[in-house]
């Protein structure tokens, strides 16, 4: 069910939500976006210091990958936990932080990585975000930080601890 297109979040209406397009829920596992088998991601799959890994949330009970809404794309970065600031430290799972991979400016994918500076970059208009500090906007046209997705470790696997901290995608004006 195409309830979200190009970053416009129309998913506020519960009647439309299907398990494959619902936003990530507590205890969801994460699977790499290009994964064929759908094995849940573990710490070792996220390279320390980048580059980031793109993932979908997956319902743990049914193994349903929630990939029918591109707003569910998640970007995972593995950082030195001592460099994380404030609530980002609480949301991280052993240094792995997760954010919405959909830029709130124009709905493009945030999958760029400035390796030297260790910051995220939107692929379309080059907004930069600091993954150590809540994906705050460093520069570029993005109007706000990327929504964060708090993580935890369950049975050695990365799992969602809490839903997105704010609305994902473009906020319609």
């Amino acid at each position, binding site marked *: 069910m195409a309830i979200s297109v190009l970053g*416009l979040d129309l998913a506020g209406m519960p009647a439309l939500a299907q398990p494959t397009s619902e936003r990530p829920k507590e205890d969801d596992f994460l699977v790499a976006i290009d994964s064929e088998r759908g094995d849940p991601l573990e710490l070792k799959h996220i390279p320390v210091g980048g580059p980031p890994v793109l993932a979908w949330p997956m319902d743990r009970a049914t193994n349903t990958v929630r990939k029918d809404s591109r707003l569910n794309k998640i970007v995972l970065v593995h950082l030195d936990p001592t460099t994380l600031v404030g609530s980002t430290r609480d949301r991280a799972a052993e240094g792995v932080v997760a954010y919405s991979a959909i830029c709130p400016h124009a*709905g*493009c994918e945030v999958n760029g990585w400035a390796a030297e500076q260790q910051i995220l970059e939107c692929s379309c208009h*080059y907004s930069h975000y600091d993954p150590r500090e809540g994906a705050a906007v460093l520069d*570029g046209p993005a109007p706000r930080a990327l929504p964060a997705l708090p993580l935890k470790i369950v049975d050695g696997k990365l799992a969602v601890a809490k839903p997105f901290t704010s609305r994902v995608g473009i906020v319609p004006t």
Partner: protein
Amino acid sequence: MTNTKALMRSACVGAILAATGMSGVSAQQTVAPASATPVPGPMPEILRAYAPVTAERLKKPEDGNWLMFRRTFDGWGYSPLAEINHENVSRLQPVWSFATGQVEGHQAPPIVNNGVMFVATPGNQLLAMEAKSGKILWRYKRPFPEDMTPLHPTNRGVGLYGDKVYFAAAEAILVALDAKTGKEVWTAKVDDYKKGYYMSLAPLVVEGKVLLGASGGELGVRGFLAAFDAETGKELWKTYTVPAPGEPGSETWPAGGDHYKRGGASIWITGTYDPETNLTFWGTGNGGPWFGDQRPGDNLYTSSVVAFDATSGAIKGHFQYHPNDSWDWDETSPPLVLDYQRNGRTVKGLVNVARDGYLWQLERTNDKINFIAGQPYVRQNVFKGLDPKTGRPDIDEARKPGTNKTAEFCPSLWGGKDWPPVAYSPQTRLLYIPANDNLCTELTGEAPKYVQGERFMGVAKNVMKMVAGADHIGELQAWDLDSGKKVWTTNLPSFNWGAVLATAGGLLFAGGTNDRKFRAFDAKTGKILWEFPTGSGVAAVPVSFQVDGKQFIAVQSGWGVDPAKMQSRMNLIFPGEYPDVPQGGAIWVFAVN
């Protein structure tokens, strides 16, 4: 729950407003819908007297008018007005300014016909203004489809013909508006935005036909140029810039594949036209995906100039600036139609300043484009040389990125000059180039998967670099095309995205730098004679026009799109030294009092 409450609150506010309107004085106070023109009133005298644009006027515009993207079909960007000159330009002052209400990249030239100015902005908006006063005459705003966000939120202006204004809406719809009212007369689907096509260019009107192409080279499209009947909106022809199997040029693509369907070569900058041969020249963009090893062959007509017969759309010649593009070097700037001296003879020429860092001097004929000369105008380390007969570059393979192959090359992927138009002055016989030197890019490719409407580039890594020890990036250069020599260079405080206007007052006007400044230069020496900081950065095409015998200079301010992206990349190299340039568009009009 919160959402419901908010909805109810706003519903209540709406009800109160409506009630107020009902009990108000007259129906004229009704709030107009956001996408419509202003409340109809008596038509201003200047619109009632609107001068229809004819094919003849487009060929020979009056000195005081700016009727198309570069004012004349030859693409010179030259105004014959001379009231503002090097003696008095220091006294140039703003006459009026007008906020467009839009952010993102403002790039369109104000188009002026007998005192009526048409200004296209981002957000699918077109403003009609009284050029001398800044009074708004009408506003057209077209809502985007709900599922569309253009990759390059900008618009580069309108075309005029008869009593109509032609506007390329972002969602690949050509709109004809009544110049007097701003109402839609007809709309025509140019292509399907769901396939990745989007538009930002100013249409070119040739002999009653509206010509335009569409962007999408990053989204797996097949480029084209199309023509529509100016009166009815009927599509007259559509010529693809990537040949289908069996068509001439198809041998430059891998056999048997679908490569041509997503081969790029999109057209997103207005072309030029030679009335003598009825040929119209358009530049084409990068191939798709970005890396040439995924589409082995020269890949005609990517990164080329293509000559089309304006009546039939038939391709009557081409010149490919570089084969098998792998550097994102769109060559969408069309060549200027311009004659120059070479070896004691006058060459009926085409001149293009390419993104690949070379200045190309070509020859136009009825059925062929010939190579005459090519040379770098910025640091270029990809071409080892050119074939002296054909102009084909000898590519240094170590400087060519590919799938899982990293290469660093200069100029950067934004080129020695991106889309901002050069200018040519017949007075100085010099060509003026807004250049970016000393920037390079490191690219690594990967094999992309095609998903309709999604990006189809295959970029694994993309890093901008500055040459070590370099002291500047942005330049304004002047070239003598008869001798093929550079005459002067003026270095600028930052990189440069400033389209150039040349005037008979011996002046050049351009913005383009990240300090919000709009400048006047001496066309003979390159000396900066005047500058003015606007509210945002200037990356639009400046123009000059005349009303009631008085000369004006006009430009839009409004930073965004690629200059903003370059600023972000510079801020990665020099953290904190390249803060965001403020956004927010405005039209600025200047004159000497």
